[in-house]
């Protein structure tokens, strides 16, 4: 009898319906998805990503930005930067998106229990960190001081601004936001996000830091944290590379010896310290 080979679930998109589209900031939007067939819950760990497929257009890696404790709603926040993401921006309720995933490593939510937490996000880099924020707030009592530092281009580019305000209003969470440029109408901070680190009031020796944003911001963020005395094995970063197959076969997302799709996107700084500053790797 002839042998055939069946592709695993990780290689074939499953259809999901767009339940809701929200415009966040200028070129960034959030998709809430639910399975087209069945009532499958989407379990994932904060920091993981999915491959989102648009029929006839293509496929892109997008971090999950929803609440891991609410697996009924699969949430992605997307910045329209390329052909596929620009087409996704036009999706409506009832549109269909293919989903493969979840893939990759996750933020150290469990390992960080007992420690102070510092989250440093820049631009749309807040999206992959939001599941971590949800997870930490869901069991806030298990952590020490909780600091969220966020940098954006300008006041109108602040992602999830209402949520940031809500988190800031909690008595157990320190939220600080800064922008690169602003006019007099802005009453908040102006300056780089690393400038906020010194005002976070965390105990560097017992702090777990999680950073996501443009790679340049991550580099300065890591250095500033190290200068402040945070241990390198307690600094976690989420990296972005060209994920295509997402299962470690296609080789596009290699970074040194790592497949970012599989060994990342979240790395502890210790894992990558020797390649972190190598250009064009």
């Amino acid at each position, binding site marked *: 009898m002839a042998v055939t080979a069946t592709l695993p679930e990780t290689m074939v998109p499953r259809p999901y319906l767009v339940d809701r589209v929200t415009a966040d900031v200028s*070129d960034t939007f959030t998709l809430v998805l639910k399975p087209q067939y069945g009532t499958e819950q989407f379990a994932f760990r904060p920091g993981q990503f999915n491959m989102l497929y648009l029929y006839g257009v293509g496929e892109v890696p997008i971090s999950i930005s929803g609440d891991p404790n609410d697996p009924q709603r699969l949430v992605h926040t997307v910045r329209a*930067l390329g052909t596929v993401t620009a087409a996704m921006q036009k999706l409506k309720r009832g549109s269909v998106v293919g989903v493969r995933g979840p893939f990759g490593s996750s933020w150290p939510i469990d390992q960080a229990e007992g420690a102070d937490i510092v989250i440093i996000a*820049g*631009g749309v880099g807040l999206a992959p960190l939001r599941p971590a924020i949800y997870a930490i707030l869901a069991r806030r009592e298990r952590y020490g001081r909780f600091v969220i530092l966020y*940098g*954006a*281009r300008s006041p109108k*580019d602040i992602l999830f601004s209402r949520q940031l305000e809500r988190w800031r209003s909690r008595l157990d969470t320190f939220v600080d936001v*800064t922008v*690169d*440029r*602003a*006019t*007099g*109408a*802005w*009453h*908040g*901070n*102006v*300056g*780089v996000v*690393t*400038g906020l680190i*010194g*005002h976070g009031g965390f105990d560097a020796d017992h702090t777990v830091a999680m950073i996501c*944003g*443009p790679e*340049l*911001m991550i580099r*300065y963020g890591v250095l500033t944290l190290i200068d402040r005395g945070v241990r390198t094995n307690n600094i976690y970063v989420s990296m972005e590379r060209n994920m295509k197959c997402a299962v470690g076969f296609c080789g596009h997302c290699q970074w040194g010896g790592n497949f970012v799709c599989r060994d990342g996107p979240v790395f502890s700084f210790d894992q990558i310290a020797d390649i972190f500053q190598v250009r064009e790797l």
Partner: protein
Amino acid sequence: MNVNDAIGRSLAGNPVFASLSEPHKELIAGCASLKVFQAGDIIYREGQPADQFYLIRHGRVGLETYVPGRAPIIVDTLREGDPVGWSWLIPPYRTHFDARALELTRVIEFDAACLRRKMEEDQAFGFAVYQRMTPIIASRLAAARRQMIDLYGRPNERGVAWR
């Protein structure tokens, strides 16, 4: 609490100057006074002689520049513990930006000429002040350059420095 006590305490708790020796702290305190700015007050204007220098005890200060026909552009915000101004330290001792109190702001105000004279007379003291001020200048320069890169901008539309 008298004024000298308040200045002494502020200096002792200031991240930049806490590490000065006691005699040097006394020297610097000798040029200091306390001051309060209301929200919106201009602390100094761009292009003026840098005759004062401030440490923020409480509150926030914005560094701004002005372009006709536009709202003031804020280039940096400073807060508790931060020095306001370094132009007083470097010739021609002239300010580069407007400094405005963004909220009720309590500061220690230093007489820049007084400080410069003491630094000239006691160069060990002068060196100690430079040692603490130059990292501030360097980090603000680096931060300004990073802001200029516009790293959150759309990748294809970022400034020349990025591409």
